[in-house]
């Protein structure tokens, strides 16, 4: 799990927090229905210039349909899509200053790499020598030197992916749409290509909108993530915010691993909330505010790496301290994952970085352990 997001460059670019900035792309109340099926349900989101924006969700959540509406392949049933304040909703794809990189790459099999990349410029009747120059530049950018005369079937998967990227970038679109761009690559190549994509995006300053179901990929590349489910956007935030402060159980569970404990609010303190949970069999203090009345049902979400596991009880065991028995251990080398069965029967997961070699008395199966966490490292969710 990448403890991700907060790369320095994202901190300098936060136009969504700047009220003086106007959004580059506005998706306003967009719905798309296919017969009785609602693929996209009243989605509103603003995307800013130069962002690397990710639409993340399980398959069938409507993220691809939303992307296809941005490209112009689908017309919204309702709502508007604006690019720099201009309504694009009904503009056909061939007139939009937007390009897309297809999941299947959709390279023209009867054309060489060079003609594939040049295709977009030829449609705009760009002078021949300029086409040649820009194509050569693009081939260099995506490191395909020496492959210009090949046909797509003579390339490897990774090379095809580069051709598709080059072809969709050559027209310098105002927005580049990427539909699961790395889905067909193997894991190692994917990780490498993610960073290349980020570099290219930064170099060209083009706004990228990427669709992916891979949360790790979304966390790595994007400036902000929109988590989608059943055609709706559940949360839009930076990767770090999404991970640390999910707004719902759905988001918390979709991004990374999480322990959720059911409980009721017993006290709304000045700087903490006190929650009683039968599952945890202890009182829980959380530092983050939540809009729920006393007595309201809530869920406490704690990431496994924020749950400390220990054989000895903590000094103050009056809150945020659960007792249980080690049920299972997963040793991953850098991490150890402990599955602990609480007295209530609830299973929770804790993970520990293996900083020292296993010399001292290690936690092992059937050990009775104490699980503790700081009030600031858990999140209270109402739904």
């Amino acid at each position, binding site marked *: 799990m990448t403890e991700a997001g907060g790369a320095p460059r994202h901190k300098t670019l936060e136009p969504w927090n700047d009220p003086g900035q106007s959004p580059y792309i506005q998706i306003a109340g967009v719905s798309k229905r296919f017969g009785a099926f609602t693929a996209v349900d009243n989605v509103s989101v603003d995307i800013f210039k130069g962002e690397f924006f990710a639409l993340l969700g399980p398959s069938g959540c409507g993220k691809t349909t939303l992307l296809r509406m941005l490209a112009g392949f689908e017309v919204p049933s309702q709502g508007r899509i604006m690019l720099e304040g201009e309504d694009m909703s009904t503009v*056909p794809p061939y007139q939009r200053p937007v390009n897309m990189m297809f999941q299947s790459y959709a390279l023209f099999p009867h054309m060489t790499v060079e003609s594939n990349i040049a295709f977009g410029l030829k*449609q705009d009747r760009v002078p021949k020598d300029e086409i040649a120059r820009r194509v050569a530049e693009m081939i260099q950018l995506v490191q395909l030197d020496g492959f210009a005369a090949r046909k797509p079937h003579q390339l490897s998967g990774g090379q095809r992916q580069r051709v598709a990227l080059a072809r969709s970038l050559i027209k310098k679109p105002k927005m580049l749409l990427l539909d699961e761009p790395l889905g067909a690559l193997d894991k190692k190549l994917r990780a490498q290509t993610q960073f290349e994509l980020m570099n290219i995006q930064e170099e060209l300053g083009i706004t990228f909108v990427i669709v992916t179901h891979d949360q790790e990929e979304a966390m790595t590349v994007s400036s902000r993530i929109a988590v989608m489910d059943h055609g709706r956007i559940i949360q839009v935030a930076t990767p770090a915010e999404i991970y640390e402060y999910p707004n719902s159980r759905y988001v918390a569970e979709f991004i990374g691993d999480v322990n959720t404990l059911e409980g009721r609010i017993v006290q709304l303190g000045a700087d903490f909330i006190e929650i009683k949970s039968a599952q945890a069999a202890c009182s829980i203090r959380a530092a983050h505010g939540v809009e729920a009345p006393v007595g309201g049902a809530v869920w406490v979400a704690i990431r496994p790496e924020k749950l400390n596991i220990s054989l000895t009880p903590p000094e103050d065991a009056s809150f945020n301290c659960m007792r249980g028995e080690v049920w299972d251990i997963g040793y991953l080398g850098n991490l150890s994952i402990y599955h602990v069965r609480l007295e209530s029967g609830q299973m929770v997961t804790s993970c520990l970085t293996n900083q020292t070699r296993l010399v001292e008395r290690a936690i092992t199966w059937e050990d009775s352990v104490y699980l503790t966490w700081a009030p600031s490292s858990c999140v209270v969710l109402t739904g």
Partner: protein
Amino acid sequence: MAEPQSNRVAYVSGRTATQGRVSGLHARFMLFAPYRWFHGLLTRTGLSSRTLVILVPYLWLLLFFLAPFLIVLKISFAEVLIARPPYSSLFEMVDGTYLQLRLSLENYLLLLEDDLYWKAYLSSIRIAGISTVITLLVGYPIAYAMARAPRQWRLTLLMAVILPFWTSFLIRVYAWIGILKKEGLLNLFLMKIGLIEQPLTVLNTDIAVFIGIVYSYLPFMVLPLYANLEKMDQSLLEAASDLGCKPLKAFWKITLPLSIPGIIAGCFLVFIPAVGEFVIPDLLGGSDTLMIGKTLWAEFFNNRDWPLSSAVAVLLLLLLIVPIMIFQRVQQNQGGAG
């Protein structure tokens, strides 16, 4: 192998076993004695089962194509006789001691000398060529519409294309006489709507032959084109559109070039049988419609000149083999590109 060999399991050596499902099937079949025995025989004679599978169609072609052709070739070198059979034998025993081979090139020389035959060949190629182009122009939109139709409709449309095959070819061509003749349906209809006053002469002209060929061979054009267009990746057109290409231009730039293998297959499937077509020019064409099929018929049945008509057939085959070989080469290249 560490396990003791039980007699319920047949062990297949790594060399003879092929991949995946086939090897599983093979291993199971090895439990049966006849299969094992047969397999042993094949291995001993150096024949793989793959060779055997390929052998079947080859034997078929040998028996039903090559052998008759050799007979025709033989007859084409004979001389015509009023006898039964009506041609001379190529082999003759001389003095009862040695065998004499007598090849007569007279028939081929006649084909080259008499311009009737050359004209018939050229006219056949012209008529077949024009018909093929018309069939392509008619068939392409049909195939395109079928390939773009909603999925649940495609099977029905496909059936509609194949359905005419359920009626006799001859009857369908006869039906066209009823439509095209002077007092036929076409003229009645055109006069009724007031487009013409005098009935058109369509029957017994080259136009009727074109209509007949286009109608009869349309499925042979539509089916390969449909198969090609149907499997085309729709995202290619989306990509073209995304890059600024309007739909009509995208058709010329993407769809058409990618359907060339289908076009070539369809054209050959129409052109080759159309060149040798006899029934359609005979029933729908006029006395001046010159086609090699008609010439062949006349030589064979009217003149009872088997050797000459055999020579006509052999030359026709040679004329057609050239385009077939081009076709094969194109197909092979396509296979490499797939």
